[in-house]
């Protein structure tokens, strides 16, 4: 794999991790809103 391909793959993995974190955070805030 070229170095640009490697960088693209690493950045996409970082984005997927960030997305999963935000998704969980959003869900937790929604749950708290419902229970309060």
């Amino acid at each position, binding site marked *: 794999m070229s170095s640009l391909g490697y960088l693209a793959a690493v*950045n*996409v993995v970082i984005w997927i991790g960030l997305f999963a974190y935000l998704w969980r955070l959003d869900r937790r*805030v929604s749950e708290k809103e419902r229970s309060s």
Partner: protein
Amino acid sequence: MKVLKLLLLPYMAAVIGAAFLWPEPAKGFIGESSRIVFFHVPCAWASTLAFIVAAVYSAAFLWKGKPWYDDIAAAAVRIGLLFGVLTLITGSLFARVMWGSWWNWDPRESSYLLLVFLYSAYLFLRAAVEDPERRPRIAAAYALFAAVLMPFLTFVAPRVTASLHPQTVINPQGKILMDTPTRAVFFGAMAGFSALFFWLLSIDARAARLRRTGENLHRD
């Protein structure tokens, strides 16, 4: 709304992949350094958008007095600062490659750093005022003051003297100097970062409202 958030996952993954693999690197730049434009400019745009949102909701708070508007304004400043710092970091990486130094006190670097300080002061101000009745009013007034300076620091000051910074999208020629793949990825990234900003804003503002109502419960 949930579908839009879900769509952001493949959309941004595609934008990130394309930023590295689709357009050719721009001429006149060392190596692949021009690709930073797909991250650096959208970060700067997202922070500008955030500061505009902060000003609008601060004005709305002063007018209507709804605490929810203050929650949104404060969240917008926090997220605007996050994108502002990312703009400085990505700009500094580019400066190291192109100009040989992490920081050059270029007019654009300096004015952007001042902008970050200006909005950092908003957070210090909020933290310093303990009275929960006065805090949002003082913060809203400051956000409006900062909003008057923001366009000057973002658009005017960097153009007053000669700068090392490459030509921006708003340039003297009055047209976008990009080939089709670069333009597609660039505006795709601008749209993606804008969507990401609004999602972050929604999470942070709603969390701030939960904290505030929790605080009120404790006080009562």
